[in-house]
């Protein structure tokens, strides 16, 4: 399968994964009186993200789209598979997006081949059930602190591509999306995408699956103000204090950003289409 059948009346879509699929970095727009985004984030957070956006695009073409999102930030691949897969299989979805492994790869000693083998078993279970599966590679982070891990990530992504080939799954290749290498596609934590990044990913998923959209994922960014060296370095220092050190602290103490966080949309519920 490479294109989704838009002639159908009804589609059940389940999103599985970690913070990327949960939508961290892309706060949900809240109704007046519902509190602030910051407060919502502190409460466990309500994020929109590329998966919600993609579901909305689907709903613009298919009368009934039922959508569940079981993704939870910080989850390792084995947690995604253990916590989210049984529920997903029980929903008998038509379409599943599955993106996980990034949190594993950031840890010392991570093995991209072992991770890929776990992922492939899960994909085969979904495919055996007749479900269409969408897999993802990640952005080619050719600069910054991720550079040293690039080869490890590339090995995992390459394995994911091979899995997609072997299982007849759809592959969304973020690696080749050079628009996502712009800092504006990322949050200040440099680990999660901004709302704009999520918007473009959703458009790319639509493009890959043949869902028509008005906007384009590869639209060039507007010209950016050049950032002077001092501002860039003070931003680096803020990032180390606000994000890197707490992240290292969580790793050392065995905690996760997702501890106690529940899936934001645990059951398939109908999606309202985007107002055109």
């Amino acid at each position, binding site marked *: 399968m490479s294109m989704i059948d838009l002639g159908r009346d009804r589609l059940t879509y389940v999103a599985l994964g970690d913070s990327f699929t949960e939508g961290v970095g892309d706060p949900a727009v809240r109704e007046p009186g519902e509190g602030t985004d910051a407060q919502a984030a502190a409460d466990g957070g309500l994020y929109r993200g590329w998966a919600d956006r993609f579901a909305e695009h689907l709903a613009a073409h298919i009368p009934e789209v039922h959508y569940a999102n079981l993704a939870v930030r910080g989850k390792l691949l084995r947690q995604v598979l253990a916590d989210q897969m049984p529920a997903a299989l029980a929903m008998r979805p038509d379409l599943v997006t599955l993106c996980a492994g990034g949190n594993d790869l950031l840890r010392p000693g991570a093995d991209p081949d072992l991770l890929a083998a776990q992922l492939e078993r899960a994909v085969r279970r979904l495919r055996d059930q007749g479900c269409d599966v969408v897999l993802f590679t990640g952005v080619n982070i050719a600069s910054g602190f991720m550079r040293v891990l690039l*080869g490890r990530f590339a*090995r995992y*992504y*390459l394995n994911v591509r091979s899995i997609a080939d072997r299982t007849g799954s759809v592959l969304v*290749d973020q690696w080749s999306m050079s628009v996502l290498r712009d800092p504006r596609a990322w949050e200040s934590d440099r680990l999660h995408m901004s709302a704009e990044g999520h918007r473009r990913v959703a458009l790319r998923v639509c493009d890959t699956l043949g869902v028509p959209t008005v906007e384009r994922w590869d639209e060039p960014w507007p010209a950016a103000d050049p950032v002077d060296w001092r501002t860039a370095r003070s931003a680096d220092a803020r990032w180390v204090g606000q994000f890197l050190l707490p992240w290292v602290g969580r790793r050392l103490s065995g905690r996760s950003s997702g501890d106690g966080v529940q899936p934001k949309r645990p059951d398939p519920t109908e999606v309202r289409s985007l107002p055109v």
Partner: protein
Amino acid sequence: MSGFAFDRDGVLSYVALGDSFSEGLSDPYPDSAETPHGHFRGWADRLAERLADEVRELRYANLAVRGRLARQIVTEQVPRAEQLQPDLVTLAAGGNDILRPGGDPDQIATIVDQGISRLRATGAHVVLFTGIDPEFQPVMRPLRGKIAVYNMHLRAIADAHDCSVVDLWAMRVLGDARAWSWDRLHHSSEGHRRIALRVCEVLGVDPGADWREPWPESPQVAWADARRADARWAREFLVPWIGRRLTGRSSGDGVSPKRPDLAPLRVSG
């Protein structure tokens, strides 16, 4: 990735571009020992033989030469392929670049991308190859990440230009020592045979056998024998290879393409 369609009652032309991998090292023909620089069959000749069974006439050229870098393949072989206007092109390039210290996968991919654009502009169906995962090869293991980055670029190039991909990275069966010649850098005849089967599969041509077929049980190699083999390999292959790199020479200096023109392939036997 679109399928490869061809007319069984017509003429099919095929051009192989690349380095030693596509030239066919080390899958020697019986006359190889008596031929200057050797005479190799390789997966590309094997693929051509298989294709010749499928069509009225197969015309085949192989411009690949051992040791060639991506830039040489794109500047020397691609223009010739453009003149030949074949229906099918296979291109495997970048391996020699990646092995060099400082070889930059981003730069190599940019060069290959230019070559692919030109080939696709002729209307040819193009087949690309990812590089092998050297997990089984201790000397090369540190290059895994670099090869993976290059492969990710290659796969994106294949997507962008609608090329077929032979994903050698995923062919775990090639991790067996029996898929390799003694120099540990080139495939054995059996390795080439399996790769040819895989290329057939990708092109939608019945390969007639399964490239995944498990290797027969192999006798355990004694530790001392394994170390002797390591020493021989280092002496006879690794040291000369490093020497060539240091002096800017290549194994392909003075070697010409084995099959420079499109000519009908006659299948013996």
